């Protein structure tokens, strides 16, 4: 009986504490509001991947951190911050939460946030928003898009020149127009330098299923494919782990993974050696874009209603700085093709339709 009463009073105490804490909370908010005014604050909402997804959420957060540090901001309200979403029902709530915390610029990271950003942009016309990887045509939204097909073309060139079996694989996350850009550019790059190579394309159906990525990679490597390019977020981690497992069993096996979004050389490290299965990575400088857009906005140049494109020319995409696994010949070829693309000599396809046309020109 005594114990029961003790438990009851404890829980009452706890409840009371929570209520009081709730009041304190409100005060703090006001304080944050008053303390602000001269500073510029910026925040982002991740999709379900989170800021440690070793992919574009992480990359975006790195850009935001860099911006924050350079401008002397603190993490948290009134500085720079992020919120992670647990499910797609949380996007709108999280965006709203940031609006209520009075951030000056709010990023939605990833195309999945498109609807939520569209809606909140109407509801909060005085707030500034930005979305990565999608286009939202609202005066208070800036859209950041990348020419992933251009970067993918370059890693396609690497893959085409590296493969010994003339079999190359592509693992996509979801079958959506965005990933189609990766696929088309990659295919074009491979075929441009190695018309005999075949590319097997598979989609995992998700960006957060590493187990699925591993399964697909396993069957691809078993079928003789020696280079796999993944554009699948955290699903791609499975591709790395499969390649590393195979390398551990047989260190002489020549298999490679091409990373995406960031320099994924570290992800490909084989434990106990200083080698990596990462051939190269198609880096999408979300950090550059986020940093760039935050800086522009701080200086009063918010490109509202515009879609800002980041391609090879803007250094928004490209191949990773880690080139240990690439020969000089390959690097040279990459540099040549890069110049051709920047000059406009080569037009890289960004849909399957455009790829068919591109393929036709190759055959001539």
């Amino acid at each position, binding site marked *: *009986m005594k114990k*029961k009463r003790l438990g009851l009073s404890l829980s009452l105490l706890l409840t009371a504490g929570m209520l009081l804490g709730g009041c304190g909370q409100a005060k703090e908010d006001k304080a944050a509001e008053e303390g602000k005014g001269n500073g510029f604050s910026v925040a982002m909402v991740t999709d379900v991947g989170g800021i440690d997804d070793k992919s574009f959420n992480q990359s975006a957060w790195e850009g935001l951190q860099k911006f924050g540090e350079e401008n002397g901001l603190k993490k948290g309200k009134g500085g720079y911050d992020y919120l992670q979403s647990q499910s797609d029902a949380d996007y709108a*709530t999280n965006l*709203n939460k940031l609006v209520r915390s009075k951030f000056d610029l709010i990023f939605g990271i990833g195309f999945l946030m498109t609807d939520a950003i569209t809606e909140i942009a109407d509801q909060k016309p005085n707030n500034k928003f930005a979305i990565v990887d999608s286009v939202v045509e609202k005066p208070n939204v800036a859209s950041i898009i990348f020419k992933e097909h251009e970067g993918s073309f370059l890693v396609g060139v690497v893959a085409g020149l590296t493969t010994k079996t003339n079999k190359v694989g592509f693992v996509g996350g979801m079958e959506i127009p965005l990933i189609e850009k990766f696929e088309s550019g990659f295919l074009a790059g491979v075929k441009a330098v190695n018309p005999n190579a075949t590319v097997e394309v598979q989609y995992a159906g998700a960006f957060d299923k590493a187990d699925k990525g591993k399964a697909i990679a396993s069957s691809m490597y078993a079928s003789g494919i020696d280079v796999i390019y993944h554009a699948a977020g955290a699903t791609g981690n499975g591709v790395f782990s499969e390649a590393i497992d195979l390398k551990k069993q047989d260190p002489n096996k020549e298999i490679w993974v091409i990373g995406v979004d960031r320099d994924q050389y570290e992800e490909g490290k084989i434990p106990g050696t200083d080698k990596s299965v990462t051939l190269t990575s198609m880096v999408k400088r979300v950090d550059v874009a986020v940093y760039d857009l935050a800086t522009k906005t701080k200086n009063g140049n918010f490109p509202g209603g515009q879609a800002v494109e980041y391609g090879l020319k803007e250094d928004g995409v490209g191949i990773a700085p880690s080139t240990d696994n690439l020969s000089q010949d390959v690097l040279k070829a990459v540099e040549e093709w890069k110049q051709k693309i920047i000059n406009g000599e080569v037009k890289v396809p960004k849909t399957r339709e455009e790829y068919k046309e591109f393929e036709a020109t190759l055959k001539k």
Partner: protein
Amino acid sequence: MNSNRLTNIMIPIFAVLLGILAGAIVMIVSGYDPIAGYSALLYGAFGDRYYIGETIRQVTPYILAGLAVAFAFRTGLFNIGVEGQLIVGWLAAVWVGVSFELPKFIHLPLAILAAAIAGALWAFIPGILKARFKVHEVIVTIMMNYIALHVSNAIIRSVLSDQGFKSEKIHASASLRSEFLQSITDYSTLHYGIIISLIGAVVMWFLLEKTTKGYELRAVGFNQHASHYAGMNVNRNIVLAMVISGAFAGVAGAMEGLGTFENISVKAGFTGVGFDGIAVALLGGNNAFGIIFAAILFGALKVGALEMPSSADVPTELVDIVIALIIFFVASSYLIRLVLNRFKKEGK
């Protein structure tokens, strides 16, 4: 009699308190401030009208999913397939929502009805397999979840969009959204679905407790042999129970499709609402009105938890652990019942 009822109410409350306490311990051990954490949770769920709106919005599908699980359970069936039934209901509702242009008073009910029928059909399959061939419904419903997920993804890609990842937005005439509700909750995604789920709870209560059909379903749930002996058609009741359960789940999907999202997008994984519905039903004691309270708790935890990382610096993973602990203690309510009874005896 009365003390029994009291115990039944005390147990879930105790479970929740224990879960909160255990969560606090986990936070302390990991070096976070539990008071700050929980006050952030509370603030994020009820702190102002926007959050209240979001919480109610989240509660809406939870009530219906909980009712779906509970309805089957009261009839002695374990419907793990609420998740899949919810997804097909969502799909059907959006499909009707985008395909027709009708006056609201026809369009909206039609869309909800389509969702109910889709969910019911999805549950009919495990029901008939159970009744005819004694295939265990748990296995079939789990498998049906995956089929629902992938089939609806394929339909979204090929029928509801042109190889895109989401459908068009539904016509306003099929929407549950309301300017009025948004204006009083500062642009939350609150919609009229909450009224439908409350009606759903009343319907379930009435159906089970007041009708001859409900009497049969409950009898079959408690004792199939006695029901057979009494002249009830056990198999037909099993199928009926699954169908009604599936209809509730389908309507839960309609809440998401016609209210929260107003469209449907390709899903990488399950929404989780159907699975949480199992915990909601458990916590609510499979009772229509208990489920409303349990759904409020879950909705508040879910929405409030989003505030914990930003206000109290508690990492998202820890929030998940705290919520899981609460569910754990609810699920082990049997233990709590044992302890409570012990106290009672010693008290005497």
